[in-house]
């Protein structure tokens, strides 16, 4: 009897481990939409990136200062970005300033995409090697950063922007920024 009880006590680690495993298993298939970034409350890291249309034109972090805006990370290899693109065009039509960052992609394909689907971006950065993406801690595309007029990152949204999400919470967040 005493031995059985001891055995039960000693089984506790096993049980705990299985509980952890269930979550790990579910985590494998889950879809991390909302994630905080380590950079929230900090300025966009320094960078120099080429413009997507023009190799000789370069942009740096100063483009994020002066007005509040969205920084949208996208790529042509990303099907979700395709779905998101229409909504970005709508946002651009509402005079929301969006900077695009083409992430680990092919320049020609990206330009064709922007020409065919209409270009919602005021400035388009070309982050071929994902360097700025690495500094920002980008998980994948699409991701959108909310940046205030001082160039400080206020919010990070992982996954696509769509009308429902925008109207429910993100719009208020954007309007609330300085």
């Amino acid at each position: 009897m005493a031995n059985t009880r001891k055995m039960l006590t000693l089984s506790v680690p096993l049980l705990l481990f299985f509980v952890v495993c269930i979550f790990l298993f579910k985590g494998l298939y889950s879809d991390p939409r909302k994630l905080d970034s380590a950079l929230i409350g900090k300025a966009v890291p320094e960078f120099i990136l080429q413009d997507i249309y023009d190799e000789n034109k370069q942009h740096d972090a100063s483009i994020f200062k002066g007005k509040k805006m969205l920084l949208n990370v996208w790529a042509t290899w990303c099907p979700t970005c395709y779905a998101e693109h229409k909504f970005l065009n709508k946002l651009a039509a509402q005079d929301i300033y969006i900077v695009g960052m083409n992430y680990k992609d092919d320049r020609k394909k990206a330009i064709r995409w922007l020409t065919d689907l209409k270009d919602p971006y005021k400035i388009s950065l070309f982050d071929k090697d994902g360097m700025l993406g690495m500094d920002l801690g980008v998980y994948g595309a699409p991701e959108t950063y909310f940046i205030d007029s001082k160039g400080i990152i206020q919010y990070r949204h992982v996954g696509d922007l769509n009308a429902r999400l925008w109207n429910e919470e993100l719009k208020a967040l954007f309007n609330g920024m300085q």
Partner: protein
Amino acid sequence: MLAEIGQFTLAIACMFALLQTVYPLYGIYARQQNAIESAKMLTILQFVFVSLSFVILSYLFLANDFTVTYIATNSNSALPWYYRLSAVWGAHEGSLLLWVLLLALWSCAVAVMSKRLPVESIARVLAVLGLLSVGFYLFVLLTSNPFLRTLPYFPVDGRDLNPLLQDIGLILHPPMLYMGYVGFSVAFAFAIAALMEGRLDSAWAKWSRPWTMAAWVFLTIGIALGSWWAYYELGWGGWWFWDPVENASFMPWIAGTALIHSLAVSEKRGVFKSWTVLLAISAFSLSLLGTFLVRSGILVSVHAFASDPERGLFILAFLILVIGGSLLLYAVQASKVKSRGRYRLFSRETMLLSNNILLIAALIVVLLGTLLPLVHKEIGLGSISIGEPFFNSMFSILVVPFALFLGVAPFVRWKRQSINELFKPLLHSLIIATVITLLFLYSFASHFTWLALMGVFLGFWVLSCTCYELYLRATHRFSLLKGLTKLGYSHWAMSVGHAGFAVMIIGITMTQNYSIERDVKLHIGESIRFEHYDFHFDAVEALQGKNYTGSVGVFTIKKDGQYVTTMKPEKRIYTVQRMPMTEAAIDAGVTRDLYIAMGEMLPDGGWAVRIYYKPFIRWIWFGPLMMGFAGILMMLDRRYRVKKVDEEEA
């Protein structure tokens, strides 16, 4: 052709690992002596073949064979040879190959260096290690093969390596970490073998102790190197970020630290045995879990919308098999273990138990902090992020009792200790610690904070207790100097290790409380002053490197008017990729680091400059180095070298 041979030798190594598991166990079952004895030879053969495979991959990297996909994506012909070599373990496939290589290396070391252990026990240990190897070989061969070809359309040259990754710190620290991670497999195998045998005695604790210590030393130094690399290369001035990858290495370290202490009790007093076994299982399980977290991309760097769960699923299945299996074995077999030793409430045993409890609490904090975001999301509460404040405040709380006990514990005897006897040494240590703390803060702190007072006091408390205990022990029978030479290596190991912890605590406290970080705009000729230091911006010079151009700032640093040094932070633009890189200038010192990073040139001709003053930050890495050194001292102790004598005594 060579790549195919590499893959083939890997498959052969897998076969030997399988034999290494099955044949000796069959031998034990069927009582066939030669089958039992074959374990060592099979292990050595397994090691030879996996080494061949690793050497071939390295050679392919050096020879720039871009027909191999892994090489084409992780190296290019312009890289210097040492970066091409380190690129072998620069990404997923190769780092797993390194993992199995190191596992084979540890197994081989066990096979060769355990001549004095009973053949049957060693055969069991090697069988367990073989089984682990088989799992990893299958993982590499089935999901992450580094030898796959890009034929028929192979690239002329490989991808350019990220400049951030071209660094000596990154060459060294992953293999160190892996040696530590994988090294815990030996302690794990010893524990499982002992459970299978149903024989958990102090001999078992004694055998696994030096192996555990070796793994712990590697892990300690590996983590310290990683932290140092992040500090000087990433340019954020931080030294620890509590990100999941760091936590993945920190958790096995905490479990390992608890394990080396609890092994001491099990070896010397024969108690806590089932607890020690659980820790041995945990330390390695956490290493595996860390691998899972990092390699499945479940927590980091996942491409969330197109992630391939196949690899993750494989590791998860392997985890369930290995960890689940061993915990099941534990639940069944450990209940038969009986502890015979007796001890009172106030004794070395309970002090070490409290060490373990606090370490486990810390472990749970890290584990929760790492996994909770995952759990939180899965039960539908939305994503949360547990950041630095959570970890920092939890650790600030836990370190207080931990350090207080740590100071007291070495004075306390096994079995029982009268409190009155301790009064004098503790009072003396308290007075010494308080005086030094106040002097220290008076000389180095710019202002007073309670947190700094507490942290520095805890550090000096541990230091003075450690030194006082050494003094008492040395003068117990001899004069001080003679006594110090008579002390055993393992006593020195304890003292140096504890002192290392104290040094680290002081470093962390000072850095966290008194760092100054300034982002300023400076024109040439201007200067800025803080903490007695003048930073004078003399000039900007043009920079012309091999594959980059840029500017270098020249700063003259003076302290209270006295010239200290000239610092030259660089701003490089890599010509091919048009990629800017900041090479910060760091002036390292015992009591402080000065750190200057150049930002952009501003339209009005000024420069954005980032200046850090980091007091005592070197201590954060010097402490772990002392701990690592202490671990080596402990392994050199007489009783592990002259085993025969001891066994006869026992």
